């Protein structure tokens, strides 16, 4: 079976005026359906750049990235937006929920841009919220929810379109240890029960240990790729 994600010789160069910064210097790897991958590395190691490329938010300078065989190289902004909408769910460190907007409406957001009908949206958003244990809190606004709950709303939003991959960028970075653990349990459950492929950036090894596979970045390259010790 073809891997879900295929990355070959990925290079990303940023030019900041005169200076050129090589964020990625030739990354090659494959990720299969159903994997739960943690990407680790110090800041500046290129892991966030890699994540942006995986999420079709950014384009590599050279090299190839295929998601389910789709190459984002020559696609327009709108086509990239459509791929993000259908195939990718994002979870951010800072939750990135729309303030003054009820939880359920935050979750419905990707469905609006997918053109789903109003009744369909409501049903799917309710389902996603109950999958992250927020049944009954649909109409709370983000400022009425705890950090852990907000992140769960964000996870529900990432899941609602039934994407191919869930990309999480330091999802526990703003949370305390206990809440972080709750969020990681949710990720584990989604991965094991719903077979959702999860790629997560973190710099905490105990968070990474919830995953099945750990990839370590340093200076824009993969320096280690191993199975997690605490797998299962």
């Amino acid at each position: 079976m073809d891997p879900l994600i295929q990355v070959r010789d990925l290079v990303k160069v940023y030019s900041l005026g005169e200076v050129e910064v090589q964020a990625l210097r030739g990354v090659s790897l494959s990720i299969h359906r159903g994997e739960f991958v943690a990407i680790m590395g110090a800041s500046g190691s290129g892991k966030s750049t890699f994540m942006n490329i995986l999420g079709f938010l950014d384009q590599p300078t050279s090299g190839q990235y295929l998601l389910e065989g789709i190459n984002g190289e020559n696609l327009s902004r709108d086509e990239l937006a459509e791929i993000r909408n259908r195939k990718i769910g994002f979870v951010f460190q800072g939750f990135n929920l729309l303030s003054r907007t009820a939880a359920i409406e935050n979750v419905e957001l990707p469905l609006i841009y997918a053109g789903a009908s109003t009744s369909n949206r409501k049903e799917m958003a309710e389902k996603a919220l109950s999958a992250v244990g927020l049944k009954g809190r649909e109409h709370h606004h983000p400022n009425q929810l705890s950090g852990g709950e907000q992140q769960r709303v964000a996870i529900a939003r990432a899941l609602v379109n039934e994407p191919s991959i869930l990309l999480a960028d330091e999802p526990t970075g703003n949370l305390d240890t206990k809440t972080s653990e709750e969020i990681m349990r949710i990720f584990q459950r989604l991965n094991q029960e719903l077979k959702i492929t999860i790629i997560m950036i973190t710099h905490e090894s105990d968070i990474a240990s919830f995953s099945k596979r750990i990839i370590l970045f340093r200076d824009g390259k993969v320096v280690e790729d191993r199975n997690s010790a605490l797998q299962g």
Partner: protein
Amino acid sequence: MTRLLASFRIALRALMVNKMRSTLTMLGIIIGVGAVIAMVAVGSGAKKQIAEQIASMGSNMLIVLSGSSTSGGLRFGSGTVPTLTADDAKAMLSEIPLIKHVAPSLSGVAQVVFGNQNWSTVVNGTTPEILEIRDWPLSWGRPFTQQDIDGATKVCLLGKTIVDVLFGGIDPIDQVIRIKNVPFTVIGVLAPKGQSTRGQDQDDTIIVPLTTAQKRLFGMQFPGMVRMMLVQARGPEVMQEVENQMNDLLRQRHRIQPNQDNDFTVRNLTEIMSTAEQSASVMSLLLGAIASISLIVGGIGIMNIMLVSVTERTREIGIRMAVGAKGRDILLQFLIESLVLSLIGGTVGIGIGVAGTLVLSHFTQWPILFSINAILLAFLFSGSVGVFFGFYPARKASMLNPIEALRYE
């Protein structure tokens, strides 16, 4: 369609969140539309008033004044010496086909007495055509006829003011009044016409048959003469032609040599009035244009606020783009926001403009005229202002880079 509806709801919500700011932004459009409506109403009111005055004067009308005769190097002003005759009028009607009606007239001021009331007014001796030319119907009674002219009967038509002053509630028909001590029977009352362009009360007049006026009231020293003629042309486009032909005919009839001045004067009153009407149109246009400037300033206000709003909501835009909003979804969202702002502003502005104009006209007594077209136009214009000035900020939002937008603090 669902997306459009969703964009609409998103836009409305964003406006509701910032109620104070939205209201203040709308204020510019409200004032702009209100000003346009008020100014156009005042301008069209003035124009309509002038048009009504033209209509009350009679349409396609030329006036031929007698006089301006020269005797031994002494030149007299128009109308001082009667040089026109009733026969001139007949000749003009029969020889110039472009003329529809001619009403020769001999008028003067006279004291009028009924019972114990008396009044000084203008008594106009003329022919029945005057009522056609000046488009002047009767409220009661009957007009006089050619028989009254031929027989120089002592009958008269009264203006509304005369009836009010002399009769005070009594039915004037068939009553006898004395004009310069000559008894006249009232046979009709003229419909009220109101003020003329020069502020004269047009209803303060009495009309009698021309021949009666000539023989009994004013014309004794110049038999058969008239002071002026009202001439109605067959259409506005032949006015100049009629004027030329009348000139030729009257010069010929009065045996005026080529090097001599006319002993009459032709005035094209309709033309003068049209000029007044045109200047009112220009004024109306000018007022509208000035008011439109405030509408444009309001539009710039919208653009300003939308730019602030886009910057402020950069992160929101980033989130929307990350979950799949396309450029046009973002564009539409912000465009709808500014459109809704300007249209609500336009609607409120129409209300305030209409109300303000009514208040203004109540206190100043200015004539006003609301036109549905002007109101619709102001509404559409405010909508286009919203789209025009909202487009740049909306486009800016839609062009944001999602990664940078997400990182924006």
